[in-house]
């Protein structure tokens, strides 16, 4: 597959290229990777990096930048694909993914010069860290924002709710949580939030401004980010209903692809599946 830089592409074409990059990188590394959760957040991250986040890929440590924290650190492959397409580093650099001594392993390791602001992998920790940064920005009267990407499975962690409560108490309007609610965790459905406990309602109960969106709908995502920006005295949780494995039909809602290896045969199937934008637009959302 030929990977195309996304600067001049339409949104859907850009997401398609990101998915191709995820699949290709996963295939080339020859090892099991977290594919499903990387694919489910592509539209969310693409919207954020292309139209919302204040950042400069060629000046990654620009002092006035917004901060993105990938708290669902296992989906780092998806983040890396977006960072590469945004121009943070070369395709060759991305090609070092899961090689010995690489900056890029399965989970984020802090390296702001490459656009990676925090180390993650242990779920439930990114929101506290992001909250600390958001608080610091406000106390320093900086017009900057923090975005923390989380998973719905991650929201099983109690530490998430410690920080959710404090962020609301502190009225951190410059903090936005993005919850990639694909409904599946490692062992299968996230039953914690599949019955009487509705995840979006939990965020509401913690006092957050909650925007529920179809996490693959560009316009809806963009509107949610705009709404978040407008809420200056309350943090916003964008609870995005997504499809795990989105974009590759046989991976969609198929938890075999939570963490798996893409063989040559599977890669060929992926290439075919990702062949046209039409395929990408076909999936039903989890919601």
């Amino acid at each position, binding site marked *: 597959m030929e990977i195309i830089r996304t600067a001049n592409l339409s949104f859907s074409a850009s997401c398609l290229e990101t998915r191709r990059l995820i699949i290709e990188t996963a295939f080339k590394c020859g090892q099991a990777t977290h594919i499903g959760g990387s694919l489910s957040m592509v539209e969310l991250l693409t919207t954020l990096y292309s139209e919302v986040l204040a950042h400069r890929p060629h000046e990654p440590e620009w002092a006035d930048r917004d901060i993105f924290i990938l708290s669902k650190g296992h989906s780092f492959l998806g983040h890396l694909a977006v960072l590469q397409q945004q121009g943070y580093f070369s395709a060759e650099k991305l090609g070092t993914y899961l090689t010995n001594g690489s900056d890029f392993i399965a989970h984020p*390791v*802090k390296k702001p010069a490459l656009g990676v602001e*925090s*180390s*993650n992998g*242990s779920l439930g*920790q990114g*929101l*506290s*860290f*992001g*909250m*600390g*940064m*958001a*608080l*610091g*920005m406000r*106390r*320093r009267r900086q017009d900057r924002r923090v975005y923390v990407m989380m998973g719905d499975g991650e929201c099983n962690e109690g*530490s998430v709710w*410690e*920080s959710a*409560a*404090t962020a609301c*108490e*502190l009225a951190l309007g410059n903090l936005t949580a993005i919850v990639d609610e694909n409904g599946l965790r490692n062992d299968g459905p996230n039953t914690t939030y599949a019955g009487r406990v509705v995840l979006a309602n939990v965020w509401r109960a913690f006092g957050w401004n909650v925007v529920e969106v179809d996490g693959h709908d560009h316009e809806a995502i963009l509107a949610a980010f705009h709404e978040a920006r407008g809420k200056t005295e309350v943090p916003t949780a964008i609870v995005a209903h997504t499809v795990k494995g989105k974009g590759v039909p046989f991976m969609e809602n198929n938890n075999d692809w939570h963490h798996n290896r893409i063989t040559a045969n599977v890669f060929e199937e992926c290439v075919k599946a990702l062949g046209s934008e039409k395929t990408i637009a076909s999936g039903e959302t989890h919601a």
Partner: protein
Amino acid sequence: MLEISARNARGWTRIGPRAIYGQALTALASADPNIFALSADLGRSSGLDRFSKEYPDQFLNVGIAEQNMVGCAAGLARMGYHVFASTFAPFASMRASEQVRMNMGYMREPVKLVALGSGLSMNYLGNSHFGLEDVAVMRTVPGLTIIAPADCAEIQKTLEACVGYDKPVYIRLTGVPNSPVVYTEDYVFEIGKAVRLTPLREVMLISSGTTVGHCLGAVELLAQAGIEAGVLNMHTIKPLDTDALADIAAKARAIFVIEEHTTVGGLGSAILDHYNDAGLSCPPVFRHGIPDRFVETGDYTFMLKQNRLDAEGIAEVVKERLGRIGADR
């Protein structure tokens, strides 16, 4: 400027380690708008009341949520604040240990995590509140400095040194009001550099935290019994002052490591690890601390006595052990 004198030292120990912490941090904040104090709802227990009133923009009580406190502290540290986050020792070191590992270890965010009431100092609150394993747990975090100040003067020295120290630190506060004074005049405090409180002698006691003061008391008792012993204040438990340890290994006949901490993985273990790994030939090293069990609870004095960590108890242990070495020879 900190003025250490016998008079001031007496006043400070009356106030006690926790209140001195809050008082000293408040004083530092008056000159440094970058100091930020976080508490997990123990501000009143750590003298931070005044801090929170005088510098409300530099203070946050995150609530009873230690994991959140450590993560938030790391985020503030990333924003350039000199962050001091405090709570009781077991909650800092164990409830939030993975946050310490990720944020202060893996990410190297230079948070200063202050463990209040460590060792046995929480009195009747019991083992749930004691810090008897914190050093063992924190020692395993790569790059984390661990400091246990010997008295209230050294707490202030530690805080001063930590403000400009761009690494994460676990600060372990033991003792209660009127714990022994160690320093009555100014001295050089340097992170990672142990302080020899007596000349180097054939019997050396190595300790940290307020146990150092009890060791000095034990040395006096031992002198009365004709045993010349010395004391090294290993205030920085990690990294160890290996030069000071080499000097002692070369000259001492017996080494005692005295600690208000389980003997599993504490300062004694760290020193033995070092002697072993460095291949240094050294005299017998005896560890004396809390045995590997939860302790019988009482007031601080009672528990120090029960565990033979007051001056009398330490002196007895030294005499017994030395007698045994003598018998073996």
